[in-house]
Each structure stands twice: as structure tokens, then as C-alpha cells.
């Protein structure tokens, strides 16, 4: 048994024994008692994309004073509804709503790099704060405070993602190839702080950590903390002014948006044999589930269980097939930061703290309460579908389109099974290219939807594939309805 005070005295004398999390299993297996008594600190950490990150900034008062109500930093909006000259810049806020690859995470990185940031602020003007507009530039040095405060970092468990659908998906879990051709996974397995202290024995409120290359603290459990399902997480705080740009990197996950790659190191004091045992965790012990992101619902199907030994091997066996894997966190930079943390402790620059309060060991995050039920396809689709057979002529199809005031016609066989679709644009193409056979212009790979699919998912699919309508089919691919963009807009507009 050791105390944190004793470990700190050892640090002071330069006698603390510091071991990296991946070195601990061997030391522990060799002699558990000796491991617990001789090892003082196990360093854990991670360098990964942490979307739930951001920073509180204080700009100081202007003359005459302004009470900022809207604020943009390099054209990225920051929340300024906190007093007069404070703001919170969040990592995932984009410069524009969409199609921008610069966001709050990059503003944070630029600040840490010492770059100049353009500030644009608006206010309504009061007797005490008459100024209504500010346009200026600031650097990190100009700010009174720049405190990184992250609502949700360091997860106990991360997912592995694959995609069973037949189209490529760009998700926050990276680019997922169709038909389960790859797996992307986050997390660093045996190096993960919470894999080494899953019961929050030593990690708690007040634990000093290495955040973005500076000293920081665990301030509590993170939002959505769900220890009941093994999905706990932590909230962190640190001073942006002391951070190292190496460990604070803005990124843009293609098709998803911006996020912040952040390095976090957590030293675990080995106070007893039980803690030593837990830090002896190996990659093969750290398990996660492979989730099918091809199904865009809150509860996505689990395809299988996998451990980090398998994930880091580059290939995982799923349903008899070897699927290639992509990590999203960087092991290389994680090792770098663990080395740096060890050196800081050895140089007596970093002492450990005991927790002042425990992280809740029970609890489960709820899902969002929706007042209205999710709208589904069968609530908006037309059931009277005008269809045609594949042997129809272009002239017949044209007549159907005009007489029924529609823009597309599903092509079906004798038993109403979907064979293709033809749009008024296809007819134009046929005319322009002198094509007379309808089968030569119709689209055979039809974007379809199911009766009970959520409208949000169908409209996202239509947007992605740039189609204006989708036939609704049953299990046997028989056409039971059709949904158009106009149907969806009418439904949205009526509420």
C-alpha cells in the first residue's frame, strides 16, 4: 500500500518508478506483488478526435464597453451569451453551416499556435454597454483567459464501425466503404486511461492530467456518462496558454465536419495490488463492438465483438471474411505524449493529485425526448403509383408523365416487382440522343425506400443520390408507393 503523498515524495527525490501502460502487463504477470510495490506510476493516454471539446475565451472590456451578443472568430461562430466579453468556441462549429473544412477546432489550434484571429462581434447596445460592433484581431496573448473546457473526453469505450449498405458513407467514424469492406475504429486500447481504471478507483474530480501538452484537470464525469453500459467518460479542463500545438490539432473528417485531435495523458498512481492488476490490462482484454453504420438509426445493429489486439493487427475476421481496419486515433502521437509526461514527472514538473470526489459509477444516458413521433415513409407516400412495363414506348411514357403531372415512373414487371425508373429528364436525354427504346434510358439501379423508414433518412438518401423521388418497395421488391421531395416538404410544411 502506498499513498499519493508518498509517490509525490518519490517524484521529489527523483526516485519514482514510471511505467507505460503497455509495459505493465509483463511486469505484473512476472510478479504481481512486486509490480504493485515497485511501480509508482503507470502512464496512460490517448490522442484522438474529440468532438466534444472547446474553450472559454475572455477578450477584456472595450472602450466604450460592449456586451457581445453575437461573435465570430475567423468567421466561426462562438457562443457569447455569457456576460459581456466571454465566449465559448466549440470544436465542431463550422465556418459556414456546411461545406467548410475550417471550424472551431482550427480556431483553437490557431490560437495555440499564436496566430492572429479575426474577431467580429455584434451587440444591441445598452446604457452600460453602448458599443454595438467590434472588428479586431487577437492572439492568445491578448486574451485574459483561454480555458479549454471539454464536456466529454476520454471515453471508457469507443466503437468500431463498418457499413453494410451498398454506398460509401462518410461518417464521424471515418470513410466507410460499402458492403463491409473496411472497419474504422477509435481509441487506443490498453493505453486508454479508463481501460486502466474502469472502476474510477483513482481517476476522479481533481485528478491532474496532461491535457494538450499542459497541466490540466479532470473536472468530473462527462456529459452522456453511462457507466451502466460501460460507456463512462470524463470532462477535462486546461489552460490553452500553456498548450503545445503538437497535441491540439484541428481536423476535418470528410463529409462529417470538423473536430479536434487532442492529446491527453493520465498518470495512474499504483497505490495497491488491485490498481496494479487493473493497469495490467492488455489490448486483447479491451473489447468493443463492431457496429453497422449502414443502418442510420439510433440503435444500430452490432455485427460482432472484437478486441484491440485484433483491430491493431490490420485485419479482423468478420463472418468468415478478413476485413481491413483503420485506426482513427494516433498511437504514434500517444506514445510521444506518454514519453513527454514521463519526462515531466522525472523532471519534478508534474506531481500527482488524489481525487476530491468520485466519478459516478452508476448511471445511463437517456435518448432525446421527441414530442412528435418520428415521421415515416408510409405517412407521406402516394399509394396510387403510376407504373409502366419495360416494353412501353418512349411516347407512351411521355404521355403518362404529362397526363398525370408527374416527373418519374417506376418500371415494373408482371407481378409489380421494381425493374427500374424513368424520369422526365431521361425522356429529354432520349430525345437528344435519338434513343427510341425506353429500356436504353431507364435507370436500373433505383434508389428505393421501405414503408417504415424514417423520413429524415429517406430525404438524406435522396439528397445524397440527387434524386427527386424514391419508389417504396416491400420485402419482395414490389412497388407499394412512391415518395417525392414535394411529399416530404408538404409534410414538413404542414407542421
Amino acid at each position, binding site marked *: 500500500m502506498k499513498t499519493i503523498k508518498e509517490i509525490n515524495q518519490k517524484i521529489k527525490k527523483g526516485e519514482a518508478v514510471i511505467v507505460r501502460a503497455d509495459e505493465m502487463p509483463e511486469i505484473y504477470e512476472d510478479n504481481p506483488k512486486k509490480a504493485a510495490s515497485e511501480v509508482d506510476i503507470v502512464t496512460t493516454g490517448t490522442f484522438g*478526435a474529440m468532438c466534444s471539446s472547446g474553450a472559454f475565451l475572455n477578450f477584456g472590456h472595450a472602450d466604450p464597453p460592449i456586451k457581445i451578443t453575437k461573435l465570430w472568430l475567423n468567421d466561426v461562430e462562438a457562443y457569447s451569451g455569457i456576460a459581456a466579453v466571454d465566449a465559448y468556441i466549440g470544436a465542431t462549429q463550422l465556418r459556414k453551416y456546411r461545406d467548410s473544412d475550417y471550424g472551431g477546432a482550427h480556431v483553437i489550434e490557431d490560437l495555440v499556435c499564436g496566430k492572429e484571429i479575426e474577431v467580429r462581434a455584434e451587440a444591441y447596445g445598452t446604457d452600460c454597454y453602448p458599443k454595438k460592433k467590434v472588428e479586431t484581431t487577437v492572439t492568445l496573448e491578448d486574451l485574459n483567459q483561454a480555458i479549454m473546457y471539454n464536456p466529454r473526453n476520454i471515453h471508457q469505450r469507443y466503437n468500431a464501425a463498418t457499413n453494410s449498405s451498398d454506398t460509401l458513407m462518410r461518417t464521424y467514424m471515418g470513410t466507410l*466503404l460499402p458492403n463491409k469492406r*473496411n472497419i*474504422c475504429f477509435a481509441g487506443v486500447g490498453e493505453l486508454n486511461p479508463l481501460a486502466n481504471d474502469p472502476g474510477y478507483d483513482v481517476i476522479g474530480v481533481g485528478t491532474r492530467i496532461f491535457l494538450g501538452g499542459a497541466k490540466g484537470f479532470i473536472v468530473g464525469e462527462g456529459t452522456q456518462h453511462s457507466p451502466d453500459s460501460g460507456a463512462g467518460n470524463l470532462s477535462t479542463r486546461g489552460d490553452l496558454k500553456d498548450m503545445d500545438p503538437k497535441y491540439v490539432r484541428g481536423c476535418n473528417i470528410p463529409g462529417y465536419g470538423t473536430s479536434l*485531435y487532442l492529446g491527453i495523458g493520465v498518470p495512474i498512481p499504483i497505490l495497491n495490488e488491485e490498481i496494479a492488476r487493473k493497469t495490467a490490462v492488455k489490448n486483447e482484454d479491451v473489447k468493443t463492438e463492431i457496429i453497422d453504420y449502414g443502418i442510420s438509426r439510433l440503435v444500430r445493429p452490432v455485427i460482432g465483438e472484437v478486441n484491440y489486439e485484433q483491430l491493431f493487427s490490420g485485419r479482423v475476421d468478420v463472418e468468415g471474411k478478413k476485413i*481491413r481496419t483503420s*485506426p*482513427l486515433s494516433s*498511437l*504514434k502521437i500517444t506514445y510521444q505524449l506518454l514519453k513527454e509526461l514521463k519526462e515531466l514527472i522525472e523532471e519534478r514538473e508534474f506531481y500527482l493529485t488524489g481525487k476530491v470526489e468520485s466519478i459516478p459509477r452508476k448511471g445511463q444516458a437517456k435518448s432525446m425526448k421527441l414530442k412528435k413521433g418520428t415521421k415515416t415513409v408510409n405517412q407521406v407516400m402516394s399509394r396510387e403509383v403510376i407504373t409502366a412495363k419495360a416494353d412501353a414506348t418512349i411516347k407512351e411514357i411521355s404521355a403518362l408523365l404529362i397526363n398525370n403531372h408527374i416527373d418519374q415512373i417506376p418500371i415494373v414487371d408482371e407481378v409489380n416487382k421494381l425493374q427500374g425508373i424513368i424520369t422526365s429528364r431521361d425522356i429529354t436525354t432520349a430525345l437528344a440522343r435519338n434513343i427510341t427504346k425506353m429500356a436504353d434510358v431507364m435507370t436500373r439501379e433505383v434508389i428505393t425506400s421501405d414503408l417504415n423508414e424514417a423520413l429524415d433518412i429517406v430525404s438524406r438518401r435522396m439528397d445524397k443520390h440527387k434524386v427527386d423521388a424514391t419508389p417504396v418497395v416491400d420485402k419482395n421488391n414490389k412497388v407499394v408507393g412512391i415518395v417525392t421531395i414535394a411529399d416530404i416538404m408538404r409534410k414538413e410544411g404542414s407542421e
Partner: protein
Amino acid sequence: MSKYLIEYSSDVVESPILSKVVVETGVLINVLRADIEYDKASIVVDIPHDEDRVIERFKESGVRVRKLEENIKKDIENCIDCGACISLCPTGAIYFTEDWSIEVDKGECIRCGACVLACPMKAMTIQEH
């Protein structure tokens, strides 16, 4: 085995040059990538043996032949060595070294650009020839 970029100009784009070269040389050329438009085309091929002879025949047929060496460049400043690109590379040209750095086997790259589009740090760029 070496990879080559074969570029067809509008004059020759409609001739079956590849088939002719295969028939005449007897070398089974593997097409790794093809970009075919109505007025020009380019293909990336793997020539398993008799490279000199095959290239000579290609050149005689009026197409431009270039050996693919510097295809993709990893910007070491931007790359954070995460590995998001690894599983997307169709030829397995991107891999981890011993110390978990990302490395590209330039000879295996077929210039598809999958890694360029997937990189969260914009660290990958296709090199112009």
C-alpha cells in the same frame, strides 16, 4: 512488377491498343484503374514481366507511357499518423511502420485518391507528373 500510366490522346482513344499489345507480346497486363472519356483516356496497368518490350509496343501505338513512382505524397507536417487512410487503399500501399508511422509504398499506389478524400488532416496529395 511495375506500374505504368498509359495516356490515350483523342487520336487513338478509339483503338483497342491494350488488347493489341497483350496479343502481340503475350504479356498478361493487369488494368488497375481506368478513366475513359469520349475524347481521351488513361489507364494504370501492372506489367508483370518483359516491361521493356511491352512499353516499346505501347509507344509505337501512339500512347504516352510513364512509370508511376512518385504518385502520392504524405505531408509529414500535417500527417498525425492515425491510419484513417489505411483500410481505404485498394492496393494496400499504405501501412504502419514499427513505430506506428504511416508509410506509403509508392510503387503500389495507383493514384486512385481514396486516401486524399479520407484524410482528416489533408496530408495526402496526388503528385502531378
